[in-house]
């Protein structure tokens, strides 16, 4: 038995050979003596361990999945001999409910993969593979000297850039931004490729992005899931959709792809991609015509409905909506009426549908549909998009002061992302911000001073940033690239220095969700392996070196205990909101916020300038958009097929798919296309094809399915690890979406406003 | 494991069936012609014992733990594989005994005991390799295939030992067995094509397997030779053995398992 280190041998213990080896070590002399005796009746005792599972055999820790995911699961980690044996979902959270997902259950593999990055290393020449081990001290020395050199050369630190996003959402990881601030004013890649257009839209309409508790979806009488695929991307939410359905709700799924979620609904609509605004407005027009508007809501709690109604009457018809979207008018009328008369009714607005040049406008149209039917502020209702209400931490790690006398950029204001909780302080200088969604172009374009150095953490730009061919060119202009990573990604290959970072089991932090209302603690379950360090420990090391070389050049604390820093993230407001006395209460399990109502906006006090729901938003107009949620056309096709590159169920962006455990179930990527198109292109099932457009190309096997609309190509984004150069960013350009700059610092990106062609190879 | 040819099992079943066939032919000759002891008794039994011995030895190689093979006798109550092991063991012991004790005349007791044990081996093999997971052969076919193999190989190899007076008989038996074998081998996969999905897939797999056609061609060649020469040339049994090995490899590697199609129509 060479078997594995869990119950297979420990509890079931039928592996006598394994036992004998273990016992050999424990009781050599006794066993030796016994073997010499002429025994007839007695047999060697094979210490049959208890056949039942025994919890007391383990140390149990609380962890929280820090990935960029709706579900942000609370984890229970079972440790024995200092080794993570297995994990499971926390039972205390009604959301996680004892189970994780296919990705979460692969975590033990991440910690103990021999391919983890273990030591700080320096590459002599990017992409050469010539790596040398250096001590943390030497790594920091190189980095600190480069930082000081940049300051010396440019007179400021704007030549140092930070590219960080959602690879680890543990709150203390905002220490990376804190580290940058503590060095001075730098260049930040701001914004988000994820959900910015929708965030702005909801801010214009409602005054914030704030969704109902997903658990109250069970109360809905009519559920529309619009451009979201929770069956893959929020598996724990599906039980609420199922339950609503069981209680009699109708579930309509609207998506250009017949998704797994769509397969679980009652009705599936496959509209023309990015025609969502027209569809929502067509429904709105019909509701208006049928007199199904919630007049109390639109008159008392909203402004601008008259103008909106006028727009609908003058510019929108159901037939027009049908023509634009491809959904028959009769269907639009039927669903609109049912939605308007169901009480409550809700729409889950997915992030996929706003990744378009008209994404923000589409979200506003859907918000309007929910509002005009009086479903805002109602339990079981709501235009559900996301929330950051449980994120009221101190951001102690994030909030660091620039060193005395730092100079920076003059004039840049505005947020640095949706998770930027800094209150706009008046400062003579600021960081320079560039658009995270145009990383490659920003590196190439930024001048005075140019970007000389890039710090990458919680992000894998080569897998996630758009226009990958351009990105490689851009990286080549940088003088130094430092990556903080767990695995050898293409980004690490394009770095000069790599710093090994801890996994969730090796650090203390706390995690909140942008969807549900549970907050879970992340305990350090095992000693950090090799020379890995958490992001804030790395920041502390850098600070120590900076101050050693140039006293006062970095304000970040130089000695850090991740547990203490976790503690510093909490405040009375959080304690009250969560109904706990102290953060250590979270060791007993995750806790849900004490909500006055499961509905957002239940008091009808909106965050808009008017304090009401704004069908007509002047703020929106000031920011360069329509005041009304008018229809906006999507991006014009630039190639023969629509190209969609959404999330796979086997990974989260570039994480998890590379693990061999995952590859047991998901061996290779596929292109999905409609059989009719394939016939035209003389492509057969499982053929290898070349997908190409103006950005680049990739070769991939094809699966034919009518789940995909005609004239559409679908490839799920992923990073398959070493030996597989599959990368959808070879086909996605960096075209901006309409909204996002208002609340996240940069417009979003039209990930699904992409086009390509395909041929058999 | 599933897709492999299971070479050890191919060797075991074919060689054991050659041994059993020899014993059967021995019995036939004794009934029809001379008494026991026709030809070189000791050599014949030595070959029988050798076939079975090599077969058993080969079979050990398909075990993960060959040294623990003796425990395979533990489940005689239900498992055909245990019974197969027992019967093959008995057969082998009888053959060795016959080879050692065989003089001018073979012992009829040993011979009839061997016939009985041999038929039991064929039956047990036939049952063992007819599991519910292989719908195409979850029936009497394996037993039929194995019996045909036994007769073909038995008649072939017996020609090495039989006296001149028995040769025409053996040739007739061989021709008959080959004809039956060809008919069965050709019709069965075609019949599968109109059966259930996994049977159909098995039929397709067999018909698409080069070794299947090698088997057919070699059987036909044997028939052709016999047609011309009206006697069994000394090398013919080797050709027949090659044919049966090819056919058995197809049996083990190309028969589709129901679990291959879960989620599909059955």
């Amino acid at each position, binding site marked *: 038995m060479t078997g594995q280190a869990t119950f297979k041998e420990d509890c079931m213990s039928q592996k006598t050979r394994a036992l004998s080896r273990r016992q050999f070590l424990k009781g050599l002399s006794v066993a030796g003596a016994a073997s010499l005796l002429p025994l007839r009746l007695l047999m060697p005792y094979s210490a049959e361990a208890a056949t039942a599972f025994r919890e007391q055999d383990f140390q149990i820790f609380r962890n929280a999945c820090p990935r960029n995911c709706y579900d942000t699961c609370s984890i229970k980690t079972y440790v024995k001999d200092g080794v993570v044996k297995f994990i499971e979902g926390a039972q205390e959270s009604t959301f996680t409910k004892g*189970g994780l997902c296919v990705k979460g259950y692969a975590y033990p593999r991440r910690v103990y993969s021999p391919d983890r990055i273990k030591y700080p290393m320096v590459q002599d020449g990017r992409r050469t593979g010539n790596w040398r081990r250096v001590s943390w001290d030497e790594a920091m020395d190189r980095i600190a000297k480069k930082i000081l050199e940049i300051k010396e050369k440019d007179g400021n630190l704007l030549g140092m850039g930070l590219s960080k996003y959602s690879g680890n959402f543990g709150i203390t990881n905002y220490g990376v931004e804190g580290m940058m601030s503590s060095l001075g004013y730098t260049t930040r890649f701001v914004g988000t490729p994820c959900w910015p257009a929708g965030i702005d839209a909801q801010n214009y309409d409602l005054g914030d992005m704030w969704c109902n508790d997903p658990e109250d979806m069970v109360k809905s009488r009519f559920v529309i899931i619009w451009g979201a695929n929770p069956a893959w991307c929020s598996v724990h939410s599906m039980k609420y959709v199922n339950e609503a359905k069981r209680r009699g709700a109708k579930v309509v799924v609207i998506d250009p792809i017949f998704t797994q979620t769509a397969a679980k609904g009652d009705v599936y609509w496959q509209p023309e991609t990015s025609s969502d605004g027209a569809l929502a407005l067509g429904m709105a027009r019909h509701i208006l015509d049928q007199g199904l508007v919630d007049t109390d809501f639109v008159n008392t709690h909203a402004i601008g409905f008259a103008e909106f109604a006028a727009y609908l009457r003058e510019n929108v018809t159901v037939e027009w909506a049908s023509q634009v979207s491809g959904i028959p008018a009769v269907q639009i009328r039927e669903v609109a009426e049912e939605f308007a008369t169901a009480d409550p009714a809700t729409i889950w607005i997915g992030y996929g549908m706003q990744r378009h040049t008209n994404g923000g406008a589409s979200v506003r149209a859907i918000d309007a549909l929910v509002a005009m039917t009086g479903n805002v502020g109602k339990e079981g209702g709501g235009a559900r998009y996301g929330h950051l209400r449980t994120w009221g931490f101190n951001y102690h790690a994030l909030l660091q002061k620039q060193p005395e006398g730092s100079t920076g950029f003059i004039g840049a204001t505005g947020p640095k992302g949706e998770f930027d909780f800094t209150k706009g302080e008046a400062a003579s200088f600021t960081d320079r911000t560039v658009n995270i969604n145009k990383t490659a172009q920003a590196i190439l374009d930024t001048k005075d001073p140019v970007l000389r150095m890039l710090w990458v953490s919680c992000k894998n730009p080569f897998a996630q940033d758009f226009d990958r061919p351009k990105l490689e060119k851009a990286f080549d202009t940088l003088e130094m690239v430092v990556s903080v990573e767990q695995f050898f990604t293409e980004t690490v290959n394009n770095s000069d220095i790599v710093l090994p970072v801890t996994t969730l089991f090796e650090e203390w932090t706390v995690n909140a969700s942008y969807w549900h209302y549970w907050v879970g603690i992340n305990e350090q379950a095992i000693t950090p392996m090799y020379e890995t360090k958490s992001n804030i420990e790395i920041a502390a090391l850098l600070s120590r070196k900076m101050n050693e070389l140039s006293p006062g050049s970095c304000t970040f604390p130089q000695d850090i205990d991740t547990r203490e820093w976790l503690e510093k993230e909490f405040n009375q407001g959080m304690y009250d909101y969560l109904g706990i006395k102290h953060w250590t209460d979270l060791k007993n399990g995750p806790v849900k916020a004490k909500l006055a109502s499961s509905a957002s906006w239940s008091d009808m006090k909106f965050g808009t300038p008017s304090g009401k729901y704004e069908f007509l938003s002047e703020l929106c107009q000031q920011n360069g958009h329509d005041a009304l949620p008018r229809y906006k056309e999507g991006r014009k096709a630039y190639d023969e097929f629509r190209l969609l590159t959404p999330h796979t169920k086997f990974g989260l962006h570039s994480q998890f798919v590379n693990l061999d455990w995952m590859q047991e179930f998901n061996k290779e990527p596929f292109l999905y296309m409609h059989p009719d198109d394939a016939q035209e292109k003389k492509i057969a099932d499982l053929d290898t094809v070349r997908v190409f457009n103006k950005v680049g190309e990739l070769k991939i096997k094809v699966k034919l*399915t009518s789940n995909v609309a005609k004239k559409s190509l679908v490839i799920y984004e992923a990073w398959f690890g070493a030996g597989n150069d599959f990368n959808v960013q070879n086909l996605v350009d960096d075209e901006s979406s309409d909204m996002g700059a208002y609340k996240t610092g940069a417009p979003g990106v039209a990930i699904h406003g992409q086009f390509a062609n395909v041929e058999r190879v | 494991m599933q897709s492999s040819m299971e070479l050890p099992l191919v060797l075991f079943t074919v060689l054991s069936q050659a041994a059993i066939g020899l014993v059967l032919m021995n019995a036939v000759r004794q009934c029809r012609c001379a008494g026991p002891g026709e030809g070189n008794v000791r050599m014949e039994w030595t070959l029988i014992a050798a076939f079975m011995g090599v077969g058993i030895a080969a079979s050990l190689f398909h075990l993960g733990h060959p040294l623990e093979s003796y425990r395979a006798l533990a489940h005689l109550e239900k498992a055909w594989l245990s019974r197969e092991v027992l019967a093959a063991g008995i057969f082998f012991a009888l053959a060795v005994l016959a080879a050692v004790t065989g003089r001018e005349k073979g012992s009829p007791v040993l011979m009839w005991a061997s016939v009985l044990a041999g038929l039991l081996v064929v039956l047990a093999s036939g049952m063992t390799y007819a599991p519910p997971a292989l719908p195409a052969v979850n029936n009497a076919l394996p037993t039929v295939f194995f019996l045909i193999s036994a007769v073909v190989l038995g008649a072939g190899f017996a020609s090495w030992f039989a006296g001149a007076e028995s040769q025409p008989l053996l040739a007739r038996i061989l021709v008959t067995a080959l004809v039956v074998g060809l008919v069965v081998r050709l019709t069965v996969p075609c019949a599968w094509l109109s059966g259930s999905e996994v049977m159909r897939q098995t039929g397709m797999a067999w018909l698409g397997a080069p070794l299947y056609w090698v088997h057919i061609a070699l059987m036909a060649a044997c028939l052709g030779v016999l047609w011309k020469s009206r006697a069994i040339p000394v090398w013919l049994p080797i050709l027949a053995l090659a044919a049966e090995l090819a056919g058995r490899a197809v049996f083990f590697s190309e028969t589709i398992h129901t679990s291959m199609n879960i989620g599909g129509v059955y």
Partner: protein
Amino acid sequence: MKKHYAFLVDSERCIGCFTCAMACRNYYHQEKGVVWRHVYPLSEEIYPHRERAFFSLACNHCENPTCLNVCPVEAYTKREDGVVVHHQEKCIGCGNCIRSCPYGAPVYNPVEKRAEKCSFCHERLDAGLLPACVQSCPTDALKLVDLATLEPENHVQFPPGFPKNAKVNPSTRFILPKVPTMVRR
């Protein structure tokens, strides 16, 4: 009827997320290539949309288990509660169970050179816990049931896509997937 644990596979709820399969791997750390629980997509003849309906299957803990019947070394036993247990230390790796089980439940462990299969997490059952896969399922699509008390509702024993073998009498029960109303452009 006496107690007989079984898996209830509710394909109407199942989202094919593979959580159950990975939960099994997370718990037992099987050797590479050794999979106890598979998530099989239904073919388009059975469910008209590719890879959108699934059967999550491991061992079916049959009433009359083929594996147990054909094992020459009596490495299989059936517990009072219906769980079919493979005692790996008895196994000699002959592969007979692997060849014989119509459901592909026993698999060959190339390192051990012995067979192995889903144990129904009987060590967890005995401790009053659910099997790892059942506990992990986010949609309650995979359930632990007792055939003795299972109400005859809308579940079936031999749905299309699952080999029919009344004689071995697999204990797994299924609820069939549904197709939504399709409105396409």
